[in-house]
């Protein structure tokens, strides 16, 4: 039991996590012939929900121009990206449970809530106009020898630098 406890309680080094992520991405690539992506599925979910309530064609041109449309037999709910995303959340919950770190976090104040929502909207919008988030357009792009991963990475660091400055000025 002691071995299991030290295995899950202690933080793993970054390089071990990096190797595990790379191996999982290779397995995913071999299985579904596409590297790991996260945010495209939110577009499918969003347009699917809008379709259900009678608002059609909101993202049609976006979907057509950038080839983000689903194949005819790919239902939105069972599209593999949805399953992968659910897996990410379940895996994260599992890892907090086995390290007994699970805890519901409260919201400290309105400012924290507002910053969180604003940050989330900006990240979501940015990920879609950049045609990917830090997974699809960075983590999966660089091992594919695609130049866009490096361009994305460069500007991600610029964005992080600006974000840190704003955080330090307004939240600390």
């Amino acid at each position, binding site marked *: 039991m002691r071995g299991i406890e030290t295995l899950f309680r202690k*933080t793993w080094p970054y390089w071990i996590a990096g190797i595990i992520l790379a191996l999982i991405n290779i397995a995913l690539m071999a299985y579904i012939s596409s590297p790991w992506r996260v945010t495209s599925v939110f577009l499918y979910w969003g347009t699917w929900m809008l379709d259900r309530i009678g608002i059609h064609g909101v993202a049609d041109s976006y979907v057509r121009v950038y080839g983000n449309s689903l194949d005819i037999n790919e239902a939105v709910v069972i599209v593999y990206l949805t399953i992968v995303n659910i897996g990410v959340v379940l895996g994260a919950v599992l890892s907090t449970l086995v390290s007994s770190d699970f*805890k519901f*976090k*409260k*919201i400290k104040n309105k400012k924290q809530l507002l910053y969180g929502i604003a940050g989330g909207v900006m990240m979501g919008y940015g990920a879609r106009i950049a045609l990917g988030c830090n997974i699809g357009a960075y983590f999966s792009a660089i091992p594919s020898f695609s130049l866009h991963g490096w361009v994305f990475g460069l500007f991600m660091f610029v964005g992080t630098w600006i974000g840190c400055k704003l*955080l330090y000025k307004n939240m*600390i």
Partner: protein
Amino acid sequence: MAEFKLDCMHETCPIPLLKAVKALKKMELGDVLIMLTDHNCSISNVIEWVEKQGHKMDYMEIGQGEWEIYIEKARK
């Protein structure tokens, strides 16, 4: 030998650490900073930073998943 309190409840990385860095800058040698946090990453990254800086520190779990970190400023 003044004592300072720092409320970092419900805040996540890296805010508690940055707050501690800022608070310690204003303190005199021998002053004690008491940080209250419910973020377990703070335990590891605040402790790592404080030990690297050469200050004295200790921490205690005061409730389920809530800690107090005591830092004594030992170096300029």
